[in-house]
């Protein structure tokens, strides 16, 4: 079974200029932890809820709440996203994609075809592939 069949084609994406506050809102609204960052349709990075947390002011901050909110609302995500993204093509077998997901512990794998982001594979998609394989044995 191939990635192209199991992937989610409706992907919530961000742009590099979006701010930490904006992407955080996006993650909360859609209950997601990973957001691919695109420039046009080209994948240029990925940002996770963890990146956002770690980019937020440190625990020892002396900043006030207002100052923290200001910093979140003005820092573009391109400063803290991962630019070196592990991505896969639609023809990869789901077992290989699952292996990669486990090895990299990255939570999701963007699917790219001809330089364009066309989908995303998450743990749940791999689980569905596993259960389909079980049903077919």
């Amino acid at each position, binding site marked *: 079974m191939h990635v192209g069949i199991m992937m989610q084609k409706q992907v919530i994406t961000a742009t590099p200029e979006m701010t930490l506050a904006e992407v*955080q809102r996006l993650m909360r609204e859609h209950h997601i932890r990973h957001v691919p960052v695109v420039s046009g349709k080209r994948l240029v990075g990925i940002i996770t809820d963890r990146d*956002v*947390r770690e980019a*937020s*002011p440190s*625990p*020892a*901050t002396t*900043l006030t*709440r207002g100052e*923290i*909110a200001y910093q*979140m609302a003005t820092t573009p995500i391109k400063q803290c996203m991962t630019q070196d993204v592990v991505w896969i093509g639609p023809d990869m077998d789901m*077992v290989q994609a*699952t*292996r990669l*997901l*486990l090895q990299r512990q990255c939570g999701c794998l963007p699917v790219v075809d001809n330089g364009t982001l066309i989908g995303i594979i998450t*743990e*749940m998609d*791999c*689980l*569905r*592939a*596993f*259960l389909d*394989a*079980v*049903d077919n*044995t």
Partner: protein
Amino acid sequence: MQVKDFMRTQVTTIPPDALVSTAYQLMTLRGSGIRHLPVVMRQNVVVGILTDRDVRLAAASDAPSMAEHELLYVLKKLHVRDIMTHDVVTVRGTTSLAEAGQIFLQKKFGCLPVIGSDNRLKGILTVSDLLRAYVEQHDTGRDV
């Protein structure tokens, strides 16, 4: 393949009368990667489960804009039993991986505590454990 073949038996747990701040510290410890804590009474009997989401929600949803010391102050006023999920879905070691997988898909849980006939915690199963089974089954050609 059964749950007991792929579950983890080294499980970090927390008692119901612990402070939520303690749970928060366990979950945010670097490298711990803990998102779910089974809540157990004496003799490892499971009475609930606490997720990182429960803790975040307890922290009044705007945790990132709250300084860490303020957050800990709020969480120190709460006990684990106040915010944990009481109705825990559990599986047995003899449950099939396919059945456990269906529970994950339908309920969107991150983990399932594994209990014995005495209701005591035997281990924990996550989606990652099932994915390891998927890869292993493919590599060894073993039937599921």
